[in-house]
Protein backbone atom coordinates (compact mmCIF):
# COMPACT_ATOMS: atom_id res chain seq x y z
CA UNK A 1 0.00 0.00 0.00
CA UNK A 2 1.39 3.42 -1.02
CA UNK A 3 1.50 5.90 1.85
CA UNK A 4 4.00 8.50 2.98
CA UNK A 5 3.35 7.72 6.62
CA UNK A 6 4.47 4.58 8.40
CA UNK A 7 2.20 5.21 11.40
CA UNK A 8 -0.91 7.35 11.66
CA UNK A 9 -2.72 7.64 14.99
CA UNK A 10 -6.06 9.45 14.81
CA UNK A 11 -8.04 10.39 17.87
CA UNK A 12 -6.52 7.41 19.66
CA UNK A 13 -8.04 7.00 23.10
CA UNK A 14 -7.89 4.44 25.89
CA UNK A 15 -10.08 4.57 28.96
CA UNK A 16 -9.98 2.29 31.98
CA UNK A 17 -13.30 3.05 33.66
CA UNK A 18 -13.15 6.75 34.52
CA UNK A 19 -9.41 6.95 33.98
CA UNK A 20 -8.39 8.29 30.56
CA UNK A 21 -4.94 6.79 29.99
CA UNK A 22 -4.59 8.08 26.43
CA UNK A 23 -6.72 11.08 25.54
CA UNK A 24 -7.63 11.55 21.87
CA UNK A 25 -4.10 11.77 20.51
CA UNK A 26 -3.17 12.38 16.87
CA UNK A 27 0.24 12.03 15.28
CA UNK A 28 1.98 10.70 12.18
CA UNK A 29 5.34 9.03 11.79
CA UNK A 30 6.96 9.42 8.38
CA UNK A 31 8.53 6.46 6.61
CA UNK A 32 12.22 6.12 7.44
CA UNK A 33 12.00 8.28 10.57
CA UNK A 34 13.24 7.56 14.06
CA UNK A 35 10.33 8.88 16.07
CA UNK A 36 10.79 9.33 19.79
CA UNK A 37 7.93 9.04 22.23
CA UNK A 38 8.82 10.67 25.53
CA UNK A 39 6.87 11.02 28.70
CA UNK A 40 7.06 10.55 32.44
CA UNK A 41 5.93 7.30 34.05
CA UNK A 42 2.21 6.75 33.66
CA UNK A 43 1.91 9.32 30.86
CA UNK A 44 0.44 6.78 28.42
CA UNK A 45 3.51 5.71 26.40
CA UNK A 46 3.16 1.96 26.81
CA UNK A 47 -0.64 2.11 26.46
CA UNK A 48 -0.17 3.93 23.15
CA UNK A 49 2.36 1.40 21.89
CA UNK A 50 0.04 -1.46 22.91
CA UNK A 51 -2.80 0.07 20.92
CA UNK A 52 -0.57 0.73 17.91
CA UNK A 53 0.62 -2.88 17.91
CA UNK A 54 -2.79 -4.50 18.39
CA UNK A 55 -2.25 -5.85 21.90
CA UNK A 56 -4.86 -3.52 23.33
CA UNK A 57 -8.07 -2.41 21.63
CA UNK A 58 -8.56 1.39 21.61
CA UNK A 59 -11.66 2.78 23.27
CA UNK A 60 -11.89 5.32 20.43
CA UNK A 61 -9.89 6.28 17.37
CA UNK A 62 -7.81 4.42 14.85
CA UNK A 63 -4.20 3.53 14.19
CA UNK A 64 -2.74 2.71 10.79
CA UNK A 65 0.53 0.94 10.15
CA UNK A 66 1.86 1.44 6.61
CA UNK A 67 -1.69 2.35 5.63
CA UNK A 68 -3.35 -0.69 7.21
CA UNK A 69 -5.85 -0.19 10.01
CA UNK A 70 -4.69 -2.21 13.01
CA UNK A 71 -8.28 -3.09 13.97
CA UNK A 72 -9.78 -3.74 10.53
CA UNK A 73 -6.78 -5.01 8.55
CA UNK A 74 -5.11 -6.62 11.53
CA UNK A 75 -3.11 -9.30 9.72
CA UNK A 76 -1.77 -6.92 7.05
CA UNK A 77 -0.89 -4.29 9.66
CA UNK A 78 0.87 -6.80 11.92
CA UNK A 79 2.88 -8.16 9.00
CA UNK A 80 4.46 -4.71 8.69
CA UNK A 81 5.75 -4.44 12.24
CA UNK A 82 8.29 -5.81 14.66
CA UNK A 83 7.94 -5.19 18.37
CA UNK A 84 10.47 -5.01 21.17
CA UNK A 85 8.57 -4.51 24.44
CA UNK A 86 9.97 -2.98 27.60
CA UNK A 87 11.00 -6.39 28.95
CA UNK A 88 12.79 -8.95 26.77
CA UNK A 89 9.95 -11.39 26.10
CA UNK A 90 12.07 -14.27 24.89
CA UNK A 91 11.47 -17.96 25.60
CA UNK A 92 14.12 -18.67 28.21
CA UNK A 93 13.69 -22.44 27.88
CA UNK A 94 14.49 -22.35 24.17
CA UNK A 95 17.82 -21.73 22.49
CA UNK A 96 18.59 -18.48 20.68
CA UNK A 97 18.15 -20.34 17.39
CA UNK A 98 14.79 -21.85 18.40
CA UNK A 99 13.50 -18.46 19.55
CA UNK A 100 14.13 -17.02 16.10
CA UNK A 101 12.81 -20.06 14.26
CA UNK A 102 9.62 -20.03 16.34
CA UNK A 103 9.16 -16.33 15.52
CA UNK A 104 9.57 -17.20 11.85
CA UNK A 105 6.87 -19.85 12.20
CA UNK A 106 4.54 -17.33 13.86
CA UNK A 107 4.95 -15.19 10.73
CA UNK A 108 4.44 -18.27 8.53
CA UNK A 109 7.82 -17.83 6.86
CA UNK A 110 8.93 -20.74 4.65
CA UNK A 111 11.36 -23.10 6.37
CA UNK A 112 14.43 -22.35 4.23
CA UNK A 113 13.89 -18.61 4.48
CA UNK A 114 13.37 -18.58 8.23
CA UNK A 115 16.58 -20.57 8.68
CA UNK A 116 18.63 -18.25 6.50
CA UNK A 117 17.09 -15.16 8.14
CA UNK A 118 17.77 -16.53 11.64
CA UNK A 119 21.38 -17.21 10.68
CA UNK A 120 21.77 -13.73 9.18
CA UNK A 121 20.33 -12.01 12.26
CA UNK A 122 22.29 -14.06 14.79
CA UNK A 123 25.48 -13.20 12.91
CA UNK A 124 24.47 -9.53 12.72
CA UNK A 125 23.85 -9.46 16.49
CA UNK A 126 27.04 -11.35 17.34
CA UNK A 127 25.20 -14.34 18.80
CA UNK A 128 25.65 -16.99 16.11
CA UNK A 129 28.34 -18.86 18.04
CA UNK A 130 25.96 -19.21 20.98
CA UNK A 131 22.88 -20.05 18.92
CA UNK A 132 22.35 -23.47 20.49
CA UNK A 133 22.51 -22.27 24.09
CA UNK A 134 19.33 -21.76 26.07
CA UNK A 135 18.51 -18.09 26.41
CA UNK A 136 18.06 -18.37 30.18
CA UNK A 137 21.86 -18.34 30.53
CA UNK A 138 22.25 -15.13 28.53
CA UNK A 139 23.02 -11.71 30.00
CA UNK A 140 20.35 -9.02 29.96
CA UNK A 141 22.05 -7.29 27.02
CA UNK A 142 22.19 -10.53 25.02
CA UNK A 143 18.51 -11.23 25.74
CA UNK A 144 17.73 -7.72 24.50
CA UNK A 145 19.62 -8.41 21.29
CA UNK A 146 17.74 -11.70 20.79
CA UNK A 147 14.49 -9.83 21.38
CA UNK A 148 15.38 -7.24 18.72
CA UNK A 149 16.48 -10.01 16.34
CA UNK A 150 13.09 -11.72 16.85
CA UNK A 151 11.36 -8.43 16.02
CA UNK A 152 13.34 -8.25 12.76
CA UNK A 153 12.69 -11.84 11.64
CA UNK A 154 9.76 -10.91 9.40
CA UNK A 155 11.66 -8.07 7.65
CA UNK A 156 9.23 -5.55 9.08
CA UNK A 157 8.87 -1.99 7.81
CA UNK A 158 8.24 -0.48 11.24
CA UNK A 159 10.05 -1.38 14.44
CA UNK A 160 8.50 -0.49 17.80
CA UNK A 161 11.07 -0.23 20.56
CA UNK A 162 9.84 0.28 24.12
CA UNK A 163 12.70 1.40 26.37
CA UNK A 164 15.26 -0.64 24.38
CA UNK A 165 18.30 0.32 26.44
CA UNK A 166 16.71 0.56 29.87
CA UNK A 167 18.69 -1.25 32.56
CA UNK A 168 21.52 -2.33 30.26
CA UNK A 169 25.26 -1.92 30.74
CA UNK A 170 27.05 0.79 28.75
CA UNK A 171 28.50 -1.61 26.17
CA UNK A 172 25.10 -3.15 25.42
CA UNK A 173 23.54 0.32 25.19
CA UNK A 174 26.14 1.39 22.63
CA UNK A 175 25.71 -1.83 20.60
CA UNK A 176 21.93 -1.44 20.53
CA UNK A 177 22.01 2.26 19.64
CA UNK A 178 24.43 1.52 16.83
CA UNK A 179 22.15 -1.28 15.58
CA UNK A 180 19.12 1.01 15.67
CA UNK A 181 20.95 3.63 13.61
CA UNK A 182 22.09 1.03 11.05
CA UNK A 183 18.58 -0.43 10.75
CA UNK A 184 17.21 3.06 10.24
CA UNK A 185 19.83 3.78 7.56
CA UNK A 186 18.58 0.67 5.79
CA UNK A 187 15.12 2.26 5.64
CA UNK A 188 13.41 0.86 8.72
CA UNK A 189 11.00 3.25 10.45
CA UNK A 190 11.58 3.27 14.19
CA UNK A 191 9.11 4.19 16.92
CA UNK A 192 11.12 4.59 20.08
CA UNK A 193 9.75 5.15 23.55
CA UNK A 194 12.32 6.05 26.13
CA UNK A 195 12.87 7.73 29.47
CA UNK A 196 16.34 8.64 28.35
CA UNK A 197 16.05 12.19 27.08
CA UNK A 198 19.65 12.33 25.92
CA UNK A 199 19.13 9.13 23.92
CA UNK A 200 16.03 10.60 22.29
CA UNK A 201 17.85 13.84 21.55
CA UNK A 202 20.76 12.02 19.91
CA UNK A 203 18.80 9.46 17.94
CA UNK A 204 15.40 10.81 16.97
CA UNK A 205 14.41 12.81 13.91
CA UNK A 206 11.27 13.95 15.69
CA UNK A 207 9.97 13.60 19.20
CA UNK A 208 6.49 13.58 20.71
CA UNK A 209 6.16 14.44 24.37
CA UNK A 210 3.15 12.84 26.02
CA UNK A 211 1.85 13.85 29.42
CA UNK A 212 -1.34 12.81 31.22
CA UNK A 213 -2.38 10.94 28.07
CA UNK A 214 -2.15 13.99 25.81
CA UNK A 215 0.48 15.03 23.32
CA UNK A 216 2.19 18.10 24.76
CA UNK A 217 4.43 18.75 21.74
CA UNK A 218 5.73 17.10 18.57
CA UNK A 219 8.73 18.40 16.67
CA UNK A 220 12.41 17.91 15.94
CA UNK A 221 14.64 18.01 19.02
CA UNK A 222 16.11 21.39 18.05
CA UNK A 223 12.74 22.98 17.35
CA UNK A 224 11.41 21.66 20.63
CA UNK A 225 14.30 23.35 22.39
CA UNK A 226 13.48 26.61 20.63
CA UNK A 227 9.89 26.37 21.87
CA UNK A 228 11.08 27.30 25.31
CA UNK A 229 13.30 30.30 24.67
CA UNK A 230 12.76 31.39 28.27
CA UNK A 231 14.88 28.41 29.25
CA UNK A 232 18.03 29.94 27.79
CA UNK A 233 20.68 30.33 30.43
CA UNK A 234 24.11 31.64 31.28
CA UNK A 235 26.43 29.27 33.08
CA UNK A 236 29.11 30.80 35.29
CA UNK A 237 31.75 29.50 37.66
CA UNK A 238 33.94 31.56 39.98
CA UNK A 239 37.41 30.84 41.27
CA UNK A 240 36.14 31.74 44.75
CA UNK A 241 32.64 32.64 45.84
CA UNK A 242 31.17 35.02 48.36
CA UNK A 243 28.69 33.66 50.90
CA UNK A 244 25.83 35.57 49.29
CA UNK A 245 26.72 34.85 45.63
CA UNK A 246 23.60 32.80 44.98
CA UNK A 247 21.32 35.51 46.38
CA UNK A 248 23.18 38.24 44.48
CA UNK A 249 22.88 36.37 41.20
CA UNK A 250 19.14 35.82 41.77
CA UNK A 251 18.73 39.59 42.11
CA UNK A 252 20.41 40.41 38.80
CA UNK A 253 18.07 42.00 36.24
CA UNK A 254 16.44 39.59 33.70
CA UNK A 255 17.35 36.50 35.72
CA UNK A 256 14.28 34.35 36.32
CA UNK A 257 15.93 31.55 38.27
CA UNK A 258 19.36 30.47 39.45
CA UNK A 259 20.26 26.81 39.84
CA UNK A 260 23.50 25.70 41.45
CA UNK A 261 25.07 22.73 39.64
CA UNK A 262 28.22 21.61 41.43
CA UNK A 263 30.69 24.51 41.32
CA UNK A 264 28.66 26.27 38.60
CA UNK A 265 25.61 28.50 38.63
CA UNK A 266 23.03 28.38 35.86
CA UNK A 267 21.17 31.65 35.44
CA UNK A 268 17.92 31.20 33.49
CA UNK A 269 16.85 34.15 31.37
CA UNK A 270 15.18 35.17 28.13
CA UNK A 271 17.89 37.83 27.59
CA UNK A 272 21.33 36.20 27.87
CA UNK A 273 23.27 39.27 26.69
CA UNK A 274 21.79 41.47 29.42
CA UNK A 275 22.57 38.82 32.04
CA UNK A 276 26.12 38.51 30.75
CA UNK A 277 26.58 42.28 31.17
CA UNK A 278 25.12 42.39 34.69
CA UNK A 279 27.11 39.32 35.74
CA UNK A 280 30.27 41.04 34.54
CA UNK A 281 29.37 44.13 36.61
CA UNK A 282 28.80 41.92 39.67
CA UNK A 283 32.17 40.22 39.16
CA UNK A 284 34.02 43.52 38.85
CA UNK A 285 32.31 45.25 41.76
CA UNK A 286 33.04 42.28 44.08
CA UNK A 287 36.55 41.66 42.82
CA UNK A 288 35.74 38.08 41.81
CA UNK A 289 37.42 35.99 39.13
CA UNK A 290 35.38 34.14 36.54
CA UNK A 291 36.72 30.77 35.40
CA UNK A 292 33.77 29.73 33.18
CA UNK A 293 31.18 31.67 31.22
CA UNK A 294 28.85 29.88 28.78
CA UNK A 295 25.55 30.71 27.22
CA UNK A 296 23.49 27.53 27.20
CA UNK A 297 20.41 26.85 25.11
CA UNK A 298 17.60 24.82 26.61
CA UNK A 299 18.27 21.09 26.68
CA UNK A 300 15.62 18.56 25.72
CA UNK A 301 15.41 17.76 29.42
CA UNK A 302 14.51 21.41 30.10
CA UNK A 303 11.80 21.20 27.45
CA UNK A 304 10.54 17.94 28.90
CA UNK A 305 10.42 19.34 32.43
CA UNK A 306 8.71 22.52 31.22
CA UNK A 307 6.09 20.70 29.15
CA UNK A 308 5.32 17.92 31.58
CA UNK A 309 5.50 20.14 34.65
CA UNK A 310 7.39 17.48 36.59
CA UNK A 311 9.42 18.72 39.53
CA UNK A 312 12.13 17.02 41.53
CA UNK A 313 10.65 15.75 44.77
CA UNK A 314 12.25 14.41 47.87
CA UNK A 315 11.59 10.92 49.20
CA UNK A 316 9.57 12.51 52.02
CA UNK A 317 7.36 14.37 49.55
CA UNK A 318 6.84 11.15 47.56
CA UNK A 319 5.84 9.33 50.74
CA UNK A 320 3.46 12.15 51.67
CA UNK A 321 1.85 11.98 48.20
CA UNK A 322 1.46 8.21 48.46
Amino acid at each position, binding site marked *: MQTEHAIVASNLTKKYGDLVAVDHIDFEVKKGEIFGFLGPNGAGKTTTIRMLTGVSIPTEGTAKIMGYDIQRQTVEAKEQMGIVPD*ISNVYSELSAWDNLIF*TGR*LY*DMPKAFRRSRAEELLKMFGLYERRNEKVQGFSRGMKRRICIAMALMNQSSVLFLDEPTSGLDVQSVLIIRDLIRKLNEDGLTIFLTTHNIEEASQMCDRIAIINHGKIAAIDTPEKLKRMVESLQSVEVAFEAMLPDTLKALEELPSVSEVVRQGDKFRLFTNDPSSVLASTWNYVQSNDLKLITVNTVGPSLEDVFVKLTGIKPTTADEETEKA
Partner: protein
Amino acid sequence: MKNKHSSHVGREVRVAWAITTKDMRTYYTRPPSIMFGILFPFSLFLSFSIGRSTPVATLIPVLIAQTLFFSSSSIGPVVIPSERANQTFDRFLTSPVSLLAILAGKTLAGIIYGVGISVIPILVGMVFFGSQIAHIGALIACMALSSLAFSAMGIMFASIPGQTPGQVMMPLNFVRIPLLFISGVYTPVGVLPTWMQFVSMLSPLTHTIELARYALGGETFFGPFVNITVLAVYAVVFLCAGIRFHIMNQRKE
Protein backbone atom coordinates in the same frame (compact mmCIF):
# COMPACT_ATOMS: atom_id res chain seq x y z
CA MET B 1 8.46 -13.44 2.98
CA LYS B 2 5.39 -15.62 3.52
CA ASN B 3 4.67 -19.15 2.37
CA LYS B 4 3.71 -19.00 -1.29
CA HIS B 5 0.22 -20.10 -2.32
CA SER B 6 -0.77 -20.10 1.34
CA SER B 7 -4.47 -19.77 2.02
CA HIS B 8 -5.64 -17.87 5.07
CA VAL B 9 -6.88 -21.09 6.68
CA GLY B 10 -3.67 -22.96 5.87
CA ARG B 11 -1.64 -20.20 7.45
CA GLU B 12 -3.79 -20.17 10.59
CA VAL B 13 -3.43 -23.95 10.93
CA ARG B 14 0.38 -23.82 10.52
CA VAL B 15 0.74 -21.04 13.10
CA ALA B 16 -1.61 -22.83 15.52
CA TRP B 17 0.52 -25.97 15.17
CA ALA B 18 3.70 -23.94 15.75
CA ILE B 19 2.17 -22.66 19.01
CA THR B 20 1.15 -26.20 20.01
CA THR B 21 4.60 -27.68 19.44
CA LYS B 22 6.26 -24.79 21.25
CA ASP B 23 3.93 -25.25 24.25
CA MET B 24 4.60 -29.00 24.25
CA ARG B 25 8.36 -28.44 24.36
CA THR B 26 8.21 -25.64 26.87
CA TYR B 27 5.43 -26.47 29.32
CA TYR B 28 4.68 -30.22 29.43
CA THR B 29 7.43 -30.92 31.93
CA ARG B 30 6.90 -27.80 34.05
CA PRO B 31 6.16 -28.64 37.71
CA PRO B 32 2.59 -27.16 37.68
CA SER B 33 1.71 -29.26 34.59
CA ILE B 34 2.99 -32.42 36.23
CA MET B 35 1.36 -31.62 39.55
CA PHE B 36 -2.09 -30.57 38.35
CA GLY B 37 -2.15 -32.71 35.21
CA ILE B 38 -0.68 -36.01 36.39
CA LEU B 39 -0.13 -36.27 40.15
CA PHE B 40 -3.47 -34.70 41.06
CA PRO B 41 -5.78 -37.12 39.16
CA PHE B 42 -3.72 -40.19 40.06
CA SER B 43 -3.62 -39.21 43.76
CA LEU B 44 -7.35 -38.52 43.83
CA PHE B 45 -7.99 -41.85 42.17
CA LEU B 46 -5.83 -43.75 44.63
CA SER B 47 -7.32 -42.02 47.65
CA PHE B 48 -10.86 -42.89 46.57
CA SER B 49 -10.22 -46.42 45.25
CA ILE B 50 -7.75 -48.01 47.68
CA GLY B 51 -9.52 -50.22 50.17
CA ARG B 52 -12.67 -50.58 48.08
CA SER B 53 -13.90 -54.02 47.18
CA THR B 54 -14.63 -52.94 43.60
CA PRO B 55 -12.54 -54.85 40.99
CA VAL B 56 -9.72 -52.71 39.59
CA ALA B 57 -10.84 -53.29 36.00
CA THR B 58 -14.12 -51.48 36.72
CA LEU B 59 -12.18 -48.50 38.08
CA ILE B 60 -10.08 -48.09 34.91
CA PRO B 61 -12.77 -45.94 33.18
CA VAL B 62 -12.76 -43.66 36.24
CA LEU B 63 -9.01 -43.19 35.96
CA ILE B 64 -9.26 -42.58 32.20
CA ALA B 65 -11.93 -39.93 32.77
CA GLN B 66 -10.04 -38.26 35.62
CA THR B 67 -6.77 -38.06 33.71
CA LEU B 68 -8.56 -36.68 30.65
CA PHE B 69 -10.34 -34.16 32.85
CA PHE B 70 -7.38 -32.90 34.88
CA SER B 71 -4.59 -33.22 32.31
CA SER B 72 -6.42 -31.53 29.43
CA SER B 73 -7.75 -28.70 31.56
CA SER B 74 -4.38 -27.97 33.21
CA ILE B 75 -2.27 -26.90 30.23
CA GLY B 76 -4.05 -23.61 29.44
CA PRO B 77 -3.98 -22.43 33.06
CA VAL B 78 -0.25 -23.25 33.29
CA VAL B 79 0.79 -21.81 29.93
CA ILE B 80 -1.22 -18.61 29.55
CA PRO B 81 -0.57 -16.96 32.96
CA SER B 82 3.14 -17.84 32.66
CA GLU B 83 3.23 -16.27 29.21
CA ARG B 84 1.37 -13.24 30.47
CA ALA B 85 3.95 -12.79 33.24
CA ASN B 86 6.91 -12.71 30.86
CA GLN B 87 4.92 -10.95 28.12
CA THR B 88 5.40 -13.78 25.63
CA PHE B 89 1.62 -13.97 25.22
CA ASP B 90 1.86 -10.47 23.71
CA ARG B 91 4.09 -12.00 21.04
CA PHE B 92 1.07 -13.93 19.76
CA LEU B 93 -1.20 -10.91 19.99
CA THR B 94 1.20 -8.87 17.86
CA SER B 95 1.79 -11.59 15.28
CA PRO B 96 -0.28 -11.66 12.08
CA VAL B 97 -2.63 -14.40 13.17
CA SER B 98 -6.13 -14.46 14.64
CA LEU B 99 -6.92 -14.95 18.32
CA LEU B 100 -8.81 -18.07 17.24
CA ALA B 101 -5.61 -19.63 15.84
CA ILE B 102 -3.67 -18.69 18.99
CA LEU B 103 -6.26 -20.28 21.27
CA ALA B 104 -6.64 -23.26 18.93
CA GLY B 105 -2.89 -23.88 19.26
CA LYS B 106 -3.12 -23.67 23.04
CA THR B 107 -6.20 -25.92 23.09
CA LEU B 108 -4.48 -28.52 20.95
CA ALA B 109 -1.53 -28.59 23.38
CA GLY B 110 -4.05 -29.44 26.15
CA ILE B 111 -5.73 -32.09 24.02
CA ILE B 112 -2.46 -33.87 23.21
CA TYR B 113 -1.39 -33.73 26.86
CA GLY B 114 -4.73 -35.12 28.08
CA VAL B 115 -4.89 -37.90 25.49
CA GLY B 116 -1.23 -38.79 26.04
CA ILE B 117 -1.66 -39.14 29.80
CA SER B 118 -4.99 -41.00 29.62
CA VAL B 119 -3.52 -43.64 27.33
CA ILE B 120 -1.52 -44.83 30.35
CA PRO B 121 -4.53 -46.15 32.36
CA ILE B 122 -5.95 -47.74 29.20
CA LEU B 123 -2.71 -49.67 28.61
CA VAL B 124 -2.34 -50.52 32.29
CA GLY B 125 -5.94 -51.79 32.36
CA MET B 126 -5.47 -53.91 29.25
CA VAL B 127 -2.08 -55.34 30.19
CA PHE B 128 -2.50 -55.93 33.92
CA PHE B 129 -6.22 -56.08 34.69
CA GLY B 130 -7.75 -57.67 31.62
CA SER B 131 -9.69 -54.62 30.42
CA GLN B 132 -10.92 -54.93 26.85
CA ILE B 133 -12.04 -52.28 24.43
CA ALA B 134 -15.59 -53.21 23.48
CA HIS B 135 -16.45 -50.06 21.49
CA ILE B 136 -13.41 -48.45 19.89
CA GLY B 137 -15.53 -45.67 18.34
CA ALA B 138 -16.86 -44.73 21.76
CA LEU B 139 -13.35 -44.67 23.18
CA ILE B 140 -12.09 -42.43 20.37
CA ALA B 141 -15.10 -40.11 20.76
CA CYS B 142 -14.62 -40.08 24.53
CA MET B 143 -10.96 -39.13 24.31
CA ALA B 144 -11.31 -36.66 21.45
CA LEU B 145 -14.39 -34.79 22.69
CA SER B 146 -13.50 -34.87 26.38
CA SER B 147 -9.95 -33.64 25.85
CA LEU B 148 -11.26 -30.92 23.54
CA ALA B 149 -13.98 -29.81 25.99
CA PHE B 150 -11.69 -29.87 29.03
CA SER B 151 -8.77 -28.24 27.28
CA ALA B 152 -11.14 -25.49 26.09
CA MET B 153 -12.42 -25.18 29.66
CA GLY B 154 -8.83 -24.63 30.85
CA ILE B 155 -8.28 -21.99 28.15
CA MET B 156 -11.53 -20.29 29.18
CA PHE B 157 -10.39 -20.13 32.83
CA ALA B 158 -6.98 -18.89 31.70
CA SER B 159 -8.70 -15.69 30.56
CA ILE B 160 -8.72 -14.74 34.27
CA PRO B 161 -6.05 -12.06 34.20
CA GLY B 162 -3.53 -13.71 36.53
CA GLN B 163 0.21 -13.91 36.05
CA THR B 164 0.88 -17.19 37.88
CA PRO B 165 -0.68 -20.62 37.25
CA GLY B 166 -1.95 -20.64 40.84
CA GLN B 167 -4.14 -17.59 40.21
CA VAL B 168 -6.03 -19.56 37.56
CA MET B 169 -5.79 -23.04 39.12
CA MET B 170 -7.51 -21.93 42.30
CA PRO B 171 -10.82 -20.84 40.71
CA LEU B 172 -10.55 -23.73 38.23
CA ASN B 173 -10.31 -26.23 41.08
CA PHE B 174 -13.35 -24.65 42.70
CA VAL B 175 -15.19 -25.98 39.66
CA ARG B 176 -13.22 -29.16 38.93
CA ILE B 177 -13.38 -30.73 42.38
CA PRO B 178 -17.16 -30.35 42.92
CA LEU B 179 -17.67 -31.77 39.41
CA LEU B 180 -15.95 -34.96 40.58
CA PHE B 181 -18.66 -35.49 43.18
CA ILE B 182 -21.67 -34.89 40.97
CA SER B 183 -20.46 -36.80 37.94
CA GLY B 184 -20.96 -40.39 39.01
CA VAL B 185 -17.22 -40.95 39.30
CA TYR B 186 -17.38 -43.35 42.22
CA THR B 187 -21.13 -43.93 42.31
CA PRO B 188 -22.76 -44.83 38.99
CA VAL B 189 -25.42 -42.33 37.86
CA GLY B 190 -28.08 -45.05 37.85
CA VAL B 191 -28.04 -45.41 41.66
CA LEU B 192 -28.21 -41.66 42.37
CA PRO B 193 -31.54 -40.00 43.35
CA THR B 194 -33.45 -38.48 40.44
CA TRP B 195 -32.54 -34.86 41.22
CA MET B 196 -28.86 -35.86 41.41
CA GLN B 197 -29.18 -37.63 38.08
CA PHE B 198 -30.41 -34.37 36.56
CA VAL B 199 -27.53 -32.42 38.09
CA SER B 200 -25.14 -35.13 37.00
CA MET B 201 -26.37 -34.91 33.43
CA LEU B 202 -25.30 -31.26 33.31
CA SER B 203 -21.70 -32.13 34.14
CA PRO B 204 -19.44 -32.85 31.15
CA LEU B 205 -17.35 -35.18 33.29
CA THR B 206 -20.38 -37.47 33.72
CA HIS B 207 -20.45 -38.09 30.00
CA THR B 208 -16.70 -38.73 29.82
CA ILE B 209 -17.00 -41.43 32.51
CA GLU B 210 -20.12 -42.90 30.93
CA LEU B 211 -18.46 -43.10 27.51
CA ALA B 212 -15.28 -44.58 28.97
CA ARG B 213 -17.33 -47.23 30.82
CA TYR B 214 -19.29 -48.01 27.67
CA ALA B 215 -16.10 -48.20 25.56
CA LEU B 216 -14.66 -50.78 27.98
CA GLY B 217 -17.81 -52.93 27.92
CA GLY B 218 -19.72 -51.31 30.77
CA GLU B 219 -23.09 -49.58 30.76
CA THR B 220 -24.03 -45.96 30.11
CA PHE B 221 -27.04 -44.49 31.90
CA PHE B 222 -27.74 -41.70 29.41
CA GLY B 223 -26.64 -43.62 26.32
CA PRO B 224 -23.61 -42.97 24.09
CA PHE B 225 -25.49 -40.60 21.77
CA VAL B 226 -26.45 -38.27 24.65
CA ASN B 227 -22.91 -38.53 26.04
CA ILE B 228 -21.34 -37.54 22.72
CA THR B 229 -23.87 -34.76 22.11
CA VAL B 230 -23.41 -33.20 25.56
CA LEU B 231 -19.61 -33.33 25.30
CA ALA B 232 -19.72 -31.77 21.82
CA VAL B 233 -22.00 -28.99 23.07
CA TYR B 234 -19.69 -28.29 26.02
CA ALA B 235 -16.67 -28.23 23.71
CA VAL B 236 -18.33 -25.58 21.53
CA VAL B 237 -19.56 -23.57 24.54
CA PHE B 238 -16.15 -23.57 26.24
CA LEU B 239 -14.35 -22.66 22.99
CA CYS B 240 -16.71 -19.78 22.22
CA ALA B 241 -16.71 -18.52 25.81
CA GLY B 242 -12.90 -18.75 25.94
CA ILE B 243 -12.52 -16.66 22.79
CA ARG B 244 -15.09 -14.16 24.03
CA PHE B 245 -13.39 -13.76 27.42
CA HIS B 246 -9.95 -13.34 25.85
CA ILE B 247 -11.34 -10.62 23.54
CA MET B 248 -12.86 -8.91 26.60
CA ASN B 249 -9.41 -9.05 28.21
CA GLN B 250 -7.89 -7.35 25.18
CA ARG B 251 -10.43 -4.55 25.51
CA LYS B 252 -9.48 -4.12 29.16
CA GLU B 253 -5.72 -4.20 28.40
